[in-house]
């Protein structure tokens, strides 16, 4: 069955002042696909996300989201920004934050009961419903990431854009997040940005490698060479799917 792709980048280039950040980028994301975007810091991942959201305009090329221009489609996108520098003492509760996903350009005063239920459901989906009345600033890093994903889910999105969801969390929390994202990916299209390659292979169909240029790989093809190609440097790979004794390996 051929469906209209959810997200299409067609020959897109973008530059900040004179510095080219993305060069002739073309790719598309199909419905219900689970995609990971990797690349070094400053490689253009976040720029690419902001272009998809219509927060930045491409210098050339076209971007289509859900068959429309990004600005028109953005209400159907659930976005979780990268490590927000929130004021620790900002007086909001977890539910207040989740409810921000239910905002719209019209409507004043209070949120309707329906909107509150959607926000609560999103919190429950992320396993943080019991924290609803807690101050957002008092949460741990992992809880905060979950609340921010819940806020993105409260938008009832067709496309979920997560920018570094595993940043600033410890490995145990990271594993939980991976599991949660895995369940989400079954229902909606998820595009995750990460610099964490271990994260990649576990849950995605395809990997988009961004370092000014874009290369696409099915996950099975990710090898040391490809990684070196993307990151450009001398990179040591650690294989997580392979156990060895405490003394380590004996190489012959």
């Amino acid at each position, binding site marked *: 069955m051929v469906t209209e792709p959810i997200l299409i980048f067609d020959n897109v280039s973008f530059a900040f002042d004179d510095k080219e950040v993305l060069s002739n980028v073309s790719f598309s994301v199909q419905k219900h696909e689970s995609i990971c975007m990797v690349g070094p810091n400053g490689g253009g991942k976040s720029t690419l996300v902001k272009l998809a*959201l219509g*927060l930045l305009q491409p210098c050339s090329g076209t971007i289509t989201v859900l068959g429309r221009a990004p600005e028109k489609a*953005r*209400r159907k*996108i659930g*976005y979780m*920004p990268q490590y*927000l520098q*929130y*004021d620790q*003492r*900002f*007086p*909001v*509760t977890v539910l*207040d*934050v989740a*409810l*921000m*996903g239910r*905002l*719209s*350009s019209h409507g*004043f*005063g*209070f*949120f309707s009961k329906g909107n509150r239920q959607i926000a609560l459901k999103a919190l429950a989906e992320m396993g943080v419903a019991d924290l609803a009345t*807690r*101050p957002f600033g008092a949460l741990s890093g992992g809880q905060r990431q979950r609340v921010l994903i819940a*806020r993105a889910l409260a*938008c009832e999105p067709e496309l979920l854009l997560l920018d570094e969801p595993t940043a600033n969390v410890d490995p145990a929390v990271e594993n939980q997040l991976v599991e949660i994202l895995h369940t989400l990916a079954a229902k909606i299209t998820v595009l995750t940005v990460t610099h964490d390659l271990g994260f990649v292979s576990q849950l995605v169909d395809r990997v988009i490698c961004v370092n000014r240029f874009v290369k696409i790989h099915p996950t099975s093809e990710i090898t040391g060479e490809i990684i070196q190609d993307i990151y450009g440097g001398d990179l040591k790979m650690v294989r997580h799917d392979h156990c060895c004794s405490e003394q380590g390996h004996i190489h012959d």
Partner: protein
Amino acid sequence: MTDFFITLTDPAIPFLRYALIAGLLASVAFGVIGSYVVVKRITYIAGAIAHCVLGGIGAALFFSQRYGLHWLTPMMGAIIAALAAALVIGLVTIHAQEREDSIISALWVTGMAAGIMFMAKTPGYIDPMSYLFGNILMISRQDLWVILGLDVGVITLGLLFYHKMLAVCFDEEFARLRGVHTRFYFLILLCLTALTIVLMIRIVGIVLVIALFSLPAAIAGHFSCRLWQMMAISTLLSMFFVTAGLAVSYGPNLPSGPTIVMIAGLSYLLTMAARMIWKKEQE
């Protein structure tokens, strides 16, 4: 202190009553808008708007005396200047790529300088001190009605847009992605800030008005986990500071604006100290 309460109920001496009523009315707007300003971290913008108001007051005095435009009251000049400053600063902040603080500082000082120059050239003697630091003797019955009108308007808009303002203050980019016109709400917030500043100028003056914007909200921030709680607590604190300041200053004939601000400042420092001690105890 008893003098204060006797005077307050004396029908022949209305000015203290007017000052107290004006202060209590303005406290509500200060609690609501001040909380937005503090969590959005734009007290320096509020400071710039406040100082620009002097330009408007000076211009109003000058033109009304010189050209007989008696409808142009200092209050009206203050409102026009405050709104103009809010819009200019807002647009600069939205559109300037960098160094917006330089432009804000420039407006801050030129607004004040213009005010003093206008006042110097206005026929008759005008004491800039009463505008800079407040003078409760200047509050008229008519002022009270203006204050009441502005107060109701500011509070209504401030509460009507509560959820959108909260989202804009917390995460502007996300609010924009939800279709909220964030720039519009930012400008509205600055305009409401401007009008709120005008409310308190008679009582504490241009220079000190920022204290009542930020200090009650800063103290309330320690005791609230939701924005509306912060608004409620800072409204009550602001009411307390105004009442206590007027009461304390009346007997020994101290300037009331600075007394109000001094009480607010000391309360803030005491709260901080108490918190630090309490935290140490917890460890």
